């Protein structure tokens, strides 16, 4: 059951974007056939705990079927599968594609097919045709420098490690490609190809950073141009600082408590007023009409007051602060480690963590899809397939 029931999806991919897109289709009730080479989908081998089995594969392929095809000897079977599919997900952002398919071939076999494709760098430009994993994308797309984490030398950038958000984001964009192409096909009968790329998504996910605004950038422009000029001159990263104004925002940041850490999330003026009372401070900073974020004296004074708040928050426990901030109406939350989330009752109350049984791994606890449809409030989740589990039944259809 689900919003995509009755649809057949062929996933010819070996990366996160393709897996995320296929997963959404499976979670919505489509029959998703993952086409794997004899060696298995590449994600099976990322931090594998057993031959061909990894957490990331199992997390991103639940509810799918696995068909193993040899790219050369099974080409005809692949064509037959494409001919029967409503949607083909073709994504090979990280490595060269194993299966040689493209939209022209798919359309010749199946004129109404919806063919979605993710590449690393898009179709044009000097890097077109290259592949990229997450670290390559962080470097190329600017997020590594912008994130600002540094290795122990204080200069060399450090890797963003909590999430491969270029890949996951591109997967979510493929979901949009699929749903909007399905809507168009439902209205007109017409299929089409929809393309996206890791880099384009990474730019879109950075908000206004990869954009210029003549008026808004007036004050920051001199520092920015100085930095760009230093880059053109071939300066070392040791001699370049990003032109970011120092932001003193004591009301939207994490603090250490006596026994852990909390986030104070007062993003708007009204909430900052509440946070000032809860944190017992009169620091106005950006809410002072005379505040100048470029004035070193004002910054120093605000930093001093911020240190006092840090000291103050450390005197009480996380539980005490959560109670104080909630009572004051200030958005807040405990800083938790992902490995502790299984202890969080709220996640079960919302069905955000669900039990999924895998053929060989047994019971696992997985993250549920991010969309809850009122018409299908309780989807059923099946485990990811073992390699080639469904080859015989699928091939029988074409015998």
């Amino acid at each position, binding site marked *: 059951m689900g919003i995509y029931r009755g649809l057949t999806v062929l996933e010819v991919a070996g990366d996160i974007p393709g897996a995320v897109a296929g997963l959404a289709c499976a979670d919505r009730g489509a029959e998703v056939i993952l086409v794997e080479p004899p060696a298995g989908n590449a994600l099976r*081998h990322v931090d594998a*705990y057993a031959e061909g*089995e*990894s957490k990331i594969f199992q997390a991103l392929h639940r509810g799918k079927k696995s068909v193993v095809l040899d790219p050369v000897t099974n080409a005809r079977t692949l064509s037959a599968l494409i001919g029967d599919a409503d949607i083909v997900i073709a994504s090979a952002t990280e490595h060269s594609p194993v299966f040689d398919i493209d939209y022209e071939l798919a359309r010749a076999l199946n004129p109404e097919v919806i063919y979605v494709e993710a590449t690393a760098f*898009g*179709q044009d*430009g000097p890097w077109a045709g290259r592949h990229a*994993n997450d*670290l390559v994308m962080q*470097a190329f797309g*600017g*997020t590594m*420098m912008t994130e600002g984490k540094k290795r122990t030398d204080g*200069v*060399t*950038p*450090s*890797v963003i490690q909590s999430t491969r*958000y270029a890949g*996951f984001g*591109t997967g*979510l964009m493929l979901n*949009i*490609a699929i*749903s909007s*192409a399905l809507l168009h096909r439902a209205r007109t009968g017409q299929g089409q*190809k*929809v393309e*996206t*790329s890791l880099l384009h998504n990474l730019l*879109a*996910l*950075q*908000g*206004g950073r*990869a954009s*210029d*605004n*003549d008026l808004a950038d*007036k004050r920051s422009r001199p520092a920015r141009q100085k930095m*760009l000029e230093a880059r053109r001159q071939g300066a*070392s*990263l040791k001699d370049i600082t990003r032109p970011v104004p120092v932001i003193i925002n004591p009301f939207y*940041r*994490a603090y*250490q408590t006596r026994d*852990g*850490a*909390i986030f104070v999330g007062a*993003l708007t*003026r009204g909430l900052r007023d509440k946070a000032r009372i809860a944190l017992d401070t009169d620091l106005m900073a950006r809410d002072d009409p005379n505040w100048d974020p470029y004035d070193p004296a004002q910054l120093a004074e605000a930093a001093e007051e911020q240190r006092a708040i840090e000291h103050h928050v450390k005197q009480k426990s996380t539980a005490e602060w959560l109670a104080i901030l909630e009572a004051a109406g200030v958005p807040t939350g405990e*800083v938790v*480690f992902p*490995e502790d*989330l299984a202890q969080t009752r*709220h996640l079960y109350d*919302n069905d955000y963590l669900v039990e999924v049984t895998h053929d060989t*791994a*047994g019971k696992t606890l997985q993250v549920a899809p991010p969309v809850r449809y*009122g018409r299908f409030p309780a989807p059923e989740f099946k485990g990811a397939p073992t390699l080639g589990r469904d080859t015989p039944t699928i091939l029988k259809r074409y015998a």
Partner: protein
Amino acid sequence: MAGPLAGIRVLEFSQVIAAPFAGQILADLGAEVLKVEPPGGESWRLQSSFAPAESKSYQCLNRGKDDMTLRLDKPEAQEIVHRLVVDMDVVLINYRPDAPAKFHIDYATLSAIKPDLVYVDLTAFGRRGDWAMRPGYDGAVQAVSGLMAAEGKTRPDDGSPATISSSAVADYSSGYVLADAVISGLYHREMTGEGQMIECSLLASALNLQPHVVMEHAIADAAVRNPARDRRRERSAQGAPYEELLGIRNPDDPHNIFYRAYLTRDGGIVIAAETPNEISAVYGFFDVDPSTIDAGIVGDVERKIESLSTAEWVTRLQRAGIPTAPIQFSEEMTSNPHVEANGWIVELEHEVTGRQTQVSLPLVFSATPLARPVAAPRLGRDTRRILQRLGYSEETVARLKHEGII
């Protein structure tokens, strides 16, 4: 009209990032999106504003929309919404969890007027459980979803956890999730005639950026994940400082030369080997024996890389089949030759603040090409026009304005 959503009408009650971003995606795809704001403007217009009720971030999240102001706590404003919704296909909302019911713009009320409405709702933490009524923004959700601790970034001043700042990841990913929720809901309506309420949350989106990390797996977790987790919990119970807990969660591997950044003579590169083949290619390239690697050898590799330019290293490493890239700055992207060749940055003219560039929607459709995007609206630009369409007289509009309802 162009794009796959041509002819679709969206009524958007939105603020800050997630729902505005979703509405912008829908507008890029050809939908007619009407954003409702309070008469003073939503908070994101006022955050870091560079002109009255105009901020750069707001303008990058609201292009292509119409805009009307309504004071939703007033019954007359609610009446306007109830008349508007008759012609709408979609309602998209990310107000505080208690706001929709309070303003009579909740699903029960609006679907009684328009039964096949696709109503998509975003809260911070989900509509069930202890936190259901809690407000929250990206930072709080990064904290409770585990992303912030997993990132392990700390503030330089006092070592407290720092927010992931290269993207407001919970917010922006929720924008994608919401847009897809709307469109898949429209697909269902097209197939069945049924509308529905669809629920999303910042927290669910944040969990879905790290599903394999959050996942509990008895076999896979036994060797490394669970022992580290238990050790961290033990030290936490003993009162260990946060930075020590982070160190247990995210141990440093100083001898990893194959997946990290390096300084070059004129900037930096990453070497990004992940597969066994790529990793052995790195060891071979630098003539390093992984079994005897130590700090001295790592230092040699670092100095060697720093002696040549970024361009030379990228060429050499690519030739050796090693994943690599130059380290670039976000600020360089608008003039990056590769980005320019793909036409991903588009130039827009804002009616009040003038010229700007923005990142286009990352989709190319073969059958339903997208129209060129237009800039975000000024506050309340379309209020009068919309009210006239609904049949309100000039006098009534003037009175509503005078009373602060619009």
